[in-house]
């Protein structure tokens, strides 16, 4: 066959037909074919910008371009931050809709194009001292979904939102905004005083061998030693990490690792808090800022507090149970995700195709909730060989204090304690009958074993030594025949007499006379009180005299409900009674100070709801009652005499004050913001009697003392349960 050599001209019509067919094809592809609309970069060898443009032109199913207006953060300064590429801070002026002030800004070291903004300590932005800004696109909605999942798993995690950032007069686009995890963040999450650390999982990296604490030089050795002992016990088949790591958070964090990274779970570094009040590591969740590359062939990972949990036999069961619970809640999670889509996708689409954004978001949802969460092999896929290389044995040199956790030996330990102290064991309970007990070494009662102290028992504790009970405590003294806890040698304070509970522990204490203690760190827990009760469910103190402390608190109760009745608290070195995150009541108690060197409060209430009735607060060098950290307090029928400041409300707290007598105080009421991450406070002042006080009130601009007429049933109702 011969082919014509003449060039054939293609007319306008064929051109038009070709264009129409192509356009129609693109319209079909981008309007109705989900895989095309949700295609990610490089999937078909084309880039995001091209996909966005095609979607914009050809997606006729689009419900309309985004019109949502995000919050806008403007940064201005003498230098343009986009020109500053060094790691240091630059002074800038930050403007948001409800905030404007000077701030420090630096580039984020872990993400290209990200920023860290540091606000003045006294002027935090929405109670946040540091925020992190990272360039965002539609796929960044994944971080928001992960935040929802982390919340669902009970993990402490910073909130994520999306804002527009304008700097140097230029729109830098939509950014993911996240509060940086720091000490202020932890305090807001109920982890005041906790120490932050990071932990990587590469077994060949010497810097991943041990927890990397930011500031706390004490926590490192304490935790390192605990972990050394725990790893040895793990090898023997024990389950010690459940007593070092917050178990629920640990399982939640493992599940998040799977959901977020799948098989690359252990390639990044994790952030943790060490909670001194419980002696536990609390895994936190922060979405990973870079893409992790999966280690080849399931390579070994470092044995560390998180990965080590996987060796404990019942963690697997709890992990799978938690995963299944989440699966059952998948519909609700989806609803949550949809709500986030509704709120944020119009912003993240940033003027592009909203339906393409929705398609991408649906793809991410499917990957999280179907591919990962619904994977029955999730646990097995997480499994890796756990090792400690990089010369670990050379540094596990055995230095440091011994840490206790339950073992099969507990019954024998209890017997040995009984033999040593001449107490007796009744069933699982250790009973200290009437008699003298000299405690020469730290005495740690095994986990979960109740302790009963009968009337007439006298504990004499050597200097710096402590008694720590890890189960219920029943002190059965009377006013006539009390139980005594004293230092063995005068003027040589003991450490602490303490209870550490598991959240269900109950303490009933009557007729206890305790004095001469200080504070201590035992078994990885810091006790600020000479008498301390941490993490109990219910604590009752009646007819007790707690006096003469040499440490931070005379009595410190952290958590649970409390009833303090007819007790005397006197002569503390600093605060007398410190109630942290408690609910309950204080009735008929006396708080007084006769020491000139003390400078504390009578009753210090933080993050709590407390009813105080018929008490006396006398000669406190600082405050009679101090109520802070968003607490609620109702004080009625009490006397405040000769205090520097009778009652202070701080930091979003509210104090209702009715029917009290204030006599000879330098200041009656104080209301102010002490910690900048909180706001001001309120004192609701009802009818009280005021006699010979120097000054009625002292306030800052954020706080108020509000005169009120009649204490309503609504207020009484708040405290009725107490």
């Amino acid at each position, binding site marked *: 066959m011969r082919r014509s050599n003449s060039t054939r001209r293609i007319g306008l019509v064929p051109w038009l037909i070709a264009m129409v067919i192509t356009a129609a094809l693109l319209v079909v592809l981008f309007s109705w074919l989900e895989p095309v609309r949700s295609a990610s970069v490089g999937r078909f060898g084309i880039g995001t910008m091209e996909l966005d443009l095609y979607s914009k032109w050809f997606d006729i199913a689009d419900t309309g371009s985004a019109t949502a207006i995000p919050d806008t953060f403007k940064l201005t300064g003498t230098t343009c931050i986009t020109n500053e*590429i*060094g*790691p*240091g801070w630059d002074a800038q002026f930050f403007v948001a809709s409800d905030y404007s002030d000077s701030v420090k800004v630096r*580039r*984020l*070291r*872990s*993400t*290209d*194009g*990200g920023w860290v903004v540091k606000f003045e300590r006294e002027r935090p932005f929405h109670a946040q001292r540091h925020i992190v800004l990272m360039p965002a696109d539609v796929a960044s909605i994944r971080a928001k979904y992960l935040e929802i999942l982390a919340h669902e798993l009970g993990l402490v995690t910073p909130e994520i939102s999306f804002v527009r950032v304008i700097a140097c007069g230029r729109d830098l686009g939509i950014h993911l905004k996240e509060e940086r995890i720091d000490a202020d963040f932890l305090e807001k999450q109920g982890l005041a005083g906790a120490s932050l650390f990071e932990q990587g999982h590469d077994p*060949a*990296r*010497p*810097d991943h*061998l*041990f*927890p*990397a*604490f930011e500031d706390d*030089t004490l926590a*490192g050795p304490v935790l*390192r030693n605990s972990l050394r002992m725990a790893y040895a016990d793990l090898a023997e088949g024990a389950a010690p990490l459940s007593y070092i790591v917050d178990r629920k958070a640990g399982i939640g964090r493992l599940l998040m690792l799977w959901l977020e990274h799948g098989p690359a779970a252990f390639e990044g570094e994790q952030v943790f808090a060490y909670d001194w009040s419980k002696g536990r590591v609390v895994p936190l969740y922060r979405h990973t800022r870079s893409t992790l*590359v999966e*280690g*080849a*062939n399931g*390579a070994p990972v470092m044995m560390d507090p998180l990965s080590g949990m996987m060796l404990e036999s019942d963690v697997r069961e709890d992990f799978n149970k938690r995963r299944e619970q989440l699966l059952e809640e998948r519909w609700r999670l989806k609803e949550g995700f949809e709500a986030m889509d509704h709120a944020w996708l119009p912003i993240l689409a940033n003027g592009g195709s909203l339906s393409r954004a929705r398609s991408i978001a649906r793809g991410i949802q499917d990957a999280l909730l179907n591919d990962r969460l619904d994977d029955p092999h999730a646990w097995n896929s997480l499994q890796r060989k756990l*090792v400690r*290389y*990089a*010369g*670990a*044995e*050379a*540094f596990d*040199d055995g*230095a440091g204090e011994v840490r206790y956790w339950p073992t099969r030996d507990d019954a024998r330990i209890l017997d040995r304690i009984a033999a040593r102290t001449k107490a007796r064991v009744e069933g699982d309970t250790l009973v200290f009958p009437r008699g003298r007990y000299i405690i020469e070494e730290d005495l740690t009662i095994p986990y979960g074993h109740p302790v009963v102290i009968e009337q007439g028992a006298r504990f004499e504790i050597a200097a710096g030594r402590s008694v720590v009970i890890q189960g219920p405590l029943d002190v059965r003294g009377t006013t006539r025949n009390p139980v005594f806890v004293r230092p063995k040698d005068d003027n040589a304070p003991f450490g602490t007499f303490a209870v550490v509970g598991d959240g269900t522990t109950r303490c009933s204490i009557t007729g206890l006379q305790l004095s001469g203690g200080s504070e201590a760190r035992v078994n990885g827990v810091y006790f600020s009180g000479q008498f301390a009760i941490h993490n109990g469910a219910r604590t009752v103190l009646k007819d007790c005299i707690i006096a003469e402390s040499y440490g931070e608190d005379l009595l410190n109760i952290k958590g649970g409900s409390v009833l303090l009745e007819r007790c005397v608290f006197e002569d503390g070195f600093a605060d007398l009674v410190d109630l942290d995150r408690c609910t309950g009541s204080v009735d008929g108690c006396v708080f007084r100070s006769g020491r000139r060197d003390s400078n504390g409060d009578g009753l210090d209430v933080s993050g709590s709801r407390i009813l105080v009735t018929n008490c006396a607060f006398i000669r406190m060098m600082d405050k009679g009652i101090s109520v802070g950290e968003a607490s609620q307090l109702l004080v009625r029928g009490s006397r405040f005499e000769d205090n520097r400041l009778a009652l202070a409300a701080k930091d979003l707290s509210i104090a209702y004050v009715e029917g009290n007598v204030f006599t000879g105080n330098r200041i009656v009421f104080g209301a102010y913001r002490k910690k900048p991450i909180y706001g001001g406070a309120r004192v609701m002042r009802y009818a009280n009697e005021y006699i010979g006080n120097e000054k009625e009130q002292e306030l800052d601009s954020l706080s108020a003392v509000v005169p009120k007429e009649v204490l309503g049933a609504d207020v009484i109702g708040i405290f009725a349960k107490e």
Partner: protein
Amino acid sequence: MKGPRSIAGLITAIVAGAVLVSLIVFAIILGPSRAMHIAAAAALNIAVDGFAEDPDPHHIPVLDLAVDAHLLDSLQADLPWSGGDNVRAILTDNGVAHKVKFRYRGVVTPSHFLGGKKSFRLSMKGSNPWLPYRKVNVINPKAHNLVNDHMASWVAGNMGVPVPMNEMVFVRMNNADYGVMEMYEQVDGDFERNRHLGSHEIPVLKGDYPSVSDRTVPRGRTLWLDAAYWEDAGAKDTSEARAMLRKLISVLVPDTLPVETHRDSIAQLIDVDTWLRYEAALLVLNTIHVDQYHNQWLVLNPRTKKFYPVLWDALLMFAPPDEPLYYVNDAMSWWTYHIPEWRLQRDRVAYEALVRLQREGEFNARLDEVIERMKPSVLADRNKYGNVTLLAEDVHRVSVLHVIGSLAGLRSSVATHWERTLRRLEANDVQVKRDSVLHITARSEAPIRLTWSGPEQAVAVNGQAVVVEPHPMGWSYVLYRTLKPPPGGKDHPLADHQRLDVEPLNATVHFEDGIPASLVITNAITDAAVE
């Protein structure tokens, strides 16, 4: 049509002629073998490496550096002498520009400073992307396989020996690829701080060649002869460490005191467990690159107040494959071999490691993982330089084929050495005769453990009463082996390049109450029964 063909043919002929002439000239100047090696390496680099188009993204960290050209020029003006001054540079990571100090490093080994990929050191500030590390060396790997030092570090770390952080990285310099390099931590007073073990600088002593002066490569000093030969590399106040080192060196001098006295004195100054793991690692790595003169570090542990060593520049399979079981790297290894229970502990650690690394496949699995991670970067690296002949100065371009071949060589030489060592440690060429006494003869090298139950009884070996140890099974005694230098060899802690051979065993063991029926005879290293 003839014209162009003839022109192309002419050009081809001219180029081929030029190549041939240059090859002949170089063959005359350098010798044919050397010239061929250099030419072949260059040809392979151009011909083979160019096929690697568009490799995957890097899976190893990328070190993106910028150093002013004129500063580089000044450093390169008269290498290796001119490279030691720190100059300013910028290390960019995630868009953040970190100011760092840059200098070349390496004077003795030409592969550090010849060729297009030169080794350097970075000193970084408190905000750098490699925190907690502040000072790192980034070197042109010494072997074509790129990883023999990296893997040596991993093997030793796996055995519980302190090692510097060691990562394979891909370097970019002034917006151009510089290639795959080995980055490792410089040991200094921050060694424990880098491991989050403390917050203060600690005393560290460095045993190496003296610093360069007068454009001459310095001569090595016998480090265990004088504490003054060790340099301070850590905290400013090293008086305590120096006093301890002086004491340690004094107890390493052999005298008439019994070995036990030396053992106890040494044990007060060093962390024996760690030291024996270190000695075991030297055997497993088959290296003689840690010697009487260099590559030694002593870190004073602030918690135990004892020294521990750090493995440095060991180079996996540096020694020839037939090195003896007891090669004396330095005075400390001499004493390790002369204290029988320490020698046994070293051998047991080495054996346990070899079983894991070789028999259970940990080494090959790790090597596979490292190769997998490095693969895209090695393919992207068009700047591979290494020794192409046995002459140190022949540092020239090499190709990916050199890397592949060398990796295979490393894998096979490791397997050969480890299997051979395992066989020697496991060998039980032992004859046992029981009559009124126990006669044991052995030609294999492992010590023999006798274990029995029952009441305590007196035991004599070759007529000498010995002290038996309590054992979970009852009682135990180890028939240690005698080590001797080969004919003409020296048996002194400070002598160089020594080896010690195991003498055949011929022991008569007398049990006061007769040979216990429960007697079990085992290889003291492997615990395998020998009878």
